[in-house]
C-alpha cells in the first residue's frame, strides 16, 4: 500500500500540509527513540525518551486527523509506516543521524526553536483541530526548547572538549535550518486558506532566539552562504532510507495485520 495525494481527493492539500508538519515530529521522534537506553546519564536518557514520547503523541493527533480527512479509508499507521521515502515531507534537519550526543542536542535545539514559533502561530489556525493540537503541543515543545537550549549552554560553556563538539554539530547542522522557512506547495496553500502558518515570517525571530542561546553558550554563530533543502519535497538524504527500512519493517513484512 502506498498513499498518494489522489487518494485524498478534495482534502489533499490539507492532508499534505498535515503530513508536512507531522513528519518532522515523526522522524525526529524516531531518531530520539534510538537513544533510549544509550543516554550519557539515566536522567538524560529519561528526558530524551520523554521528548520522543511527546513527539509521537503529536504525530498521532496529526495523523488521526489526516486519516479522518482522507476519502480513502486509512489509519494513522498507514500514514506513519506505509509511504515511500519520496512521500515523507520532513525537513532534512530532523533525519540527520545521532552522530554523538552533541548532534542529538544540536538537532533538537535547532528544531525546537522553530517548532515553538511554528506552534505558537498554528494556534491561530482557522482549522479548529490544528489549532487545538498546537495548543496542546506547545507546552511540550516549550519544555523541549528549554531542555535542548540548557544543554547547548552546558556543552558550549562546559569543557573545551564539549565546546568543540557542540560547535561542530551546530556548524554541521546549520545548513539545514534554512529549509525550515521555505514553504512547500502545501504550506503556501495553507497560508492562503488560513489554516497554515506563514513560516517565512518566523525566520527573523528564530535567528534571534537561536543566536541568543549560542552567544550565551560562548559559541560562534555559523555564517553560511549555502543551504541544504529537499526534504519538504520528499528528496531526502541517504540516511532516510535506512531509518525507514527499520521503521517500516513490521508493517511491510506483515501487511494488513493488527498489532
Amino acid at each position, binding site marked *: 500500500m502506498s498513499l498518494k495525494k489522489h487518494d485524498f481527493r478534495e482534502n489533499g492539500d490539507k492532508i499534505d500540509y498535515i503530513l508536512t508538519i507531522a513528519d518532522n515530529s515523526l522522524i525526529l521522534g524516531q531518531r530520539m527513540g534510538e537513544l533510549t*537506553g544509550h543516554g*550519557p*546519564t539515566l536522567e538524560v536518557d529519561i528526558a530524551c525518551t520523554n521528548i520522543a514520547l511527546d513527539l*509521537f503523541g503529536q504525530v498521532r493527533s496529526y495523523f488521526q486527523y489526516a486519516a479522518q480527512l482522507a476519502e480513502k479509508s486509512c489509519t494513522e*499507521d498507514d500514514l506513519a*509506516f506505509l509511504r515511500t521515502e519520496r512521500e515523507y515531507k520532513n525537513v532534512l534537519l530532523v533525519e540527520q543521524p545521532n552522530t554523538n550526543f552533541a548532534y542529538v542536542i544540536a538537532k533538537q535545539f535547532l528544531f525546537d526553536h522553530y517548532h515553538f514559533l511554528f506552534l505558537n502561530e498554528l494556534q491561530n489556525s482557522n482549522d479548529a483541530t490544528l489549532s487545538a493540537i498546537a495548543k496542546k503541543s506547545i507546552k511540550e515543545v516549550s519544555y523541549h526548547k528549554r531542555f535542548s537550549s540548557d544543554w547547548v549552554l552546558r*556543552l558550549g560553556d562546559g569543557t573545551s572538549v564539549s565546546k568543540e*563538539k557542540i560547535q561542530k554539530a551546530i556548524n554541521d547542522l546549520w545548513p539545514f535550518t534554512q529549509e525550515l522557512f521555505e514553504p512547500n506547495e502545501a504550506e503556501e496553500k495553507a497560508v492562503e486558506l488560513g489554516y497554515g502558518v506563514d513560516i517565512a515570517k518566523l525566520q527573523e525571530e528564530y535567528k534571534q532566539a537561536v543566536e541568543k542561546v549560542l552567544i550565551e553558550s560562548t559559541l560562534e554563530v555559523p555564517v553560511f552562504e549555502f543551504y541544504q533543502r529537499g526534504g519538504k519535497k520528499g528528496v531526502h538524504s541517504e540516511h532516510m532510507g535506512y*531509518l525507514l527500512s527499520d*521503521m517500516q519493517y513490521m508493517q511491510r513484512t506483515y501487511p494488513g495485520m493488527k498489532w
Partner: protein
Amino acid sequence: MSEKEIKNLEAIFEAKIARDEKIEPKDWMPEKYRKTHIRQMSQHAHSEIVGMLPEGNWITRAPSLRRKVALLAKVQDEAGHGLYLYSATETLGISREELYEQLHSGKAKYSSIFNYPTITWADIGAIGWLVDGAAIINQVPLCSTSFGPYARAMVRVCKEESFHQRQGYEIMLTLANGTPEQKEMAQDALNRWWWPSLMMFGPTDDMSTHTEQSMKWKLKRKTNDELRQQFIDQTVPQANILGLSIPDPDLKWNEERGHYDFGPINWDEFWQVVKGHGPCNKERLQTRVDAWEEGEWVRDAAMAYAEKKAERKVKQAG
C-alpha cells in the same frame, strides 16, 4: 563501641524488624545488612538498566504508533526504576559511580533473563507477560521489606510493573487473536521465554544460599521454589486463554498438591548464562559500557558548567 553496646544496638535493630518497623538510612544497622542490601538493591537497579536493552531493540521497529509509544514509555519507566533504586542504594553510603563501576567490570550481577535476544515483536509481548510477571512475584513481597528506602521504591516499581505486565499480555492477546502468522509468532516467543522465565526465581531451594538470613530481614518471604510454583500456577491459565501451549510436556495439574507439576529445568543453561556465557551477556555489558564511556565528556561538561555557574554566583554575591 563496646561489645555490649553493639549487642544492644543489634537487639534494638532486630526488635524493630520483628515489629515490622522500617530501618532507615540514618539508623544503626549491622554491616552485613548494609552489604547484603547494597548487593541486592544494586543488582536490582542494574537489572532495570540492562533490561532496557532487549526491549529498546524494538523501539525503532515497533509495528504501530500506539505500540511504539507504549514501548518507549515502558523502557522509560525502567530507567525510572533504575534511577530510584540507585538513589535508594546510595542511602547506604555507596556512590552511583561505584555502583556503575561494579556493573561495568562484571563484579555486580543483573538478572540473567536480559541476556536473551528479542528476535521478534512477540518477544516484547512475552517479556511483558512472563518476565514482568515473574518479576512482580519476586518483588511484591519487597514492598514490605525491612529497609525503608527499598520498600518504598518497590511500591512504586510494582505498581508500574503490573501495568507493564498487563500491556505485555495484551500484545500477546492481539497476536494470538491475529493471523496464523501472528499466532505462530506468539507461540514461538512463549517457547523461547518460558524456561528462562522459570529460571528467574533462582536455583531450587536445596541449591540456594542466603535464604534464612534474607527471610529474617524480609528480603525474602517465600522460597525460590514456592515463588516459581506461584508463577506457573498463575501463568498456565493465562496461556490457556491465549490458546497457546506451554512448551513443557510434563506440565499438568496435580489435584492432590493443588498445583501444576512441571518438567525439569535445564540448570546447565542457567549457570552458563549466570557465568556470563548467555547469548547476549557480552553485548549487553558492552552496550552499557559504551553508553557510559561515550557519555563521559557530556557528564564532564555538565559538571564543569555547574561549577562555573556556582563560581559566578559566589562572585556576584561577593
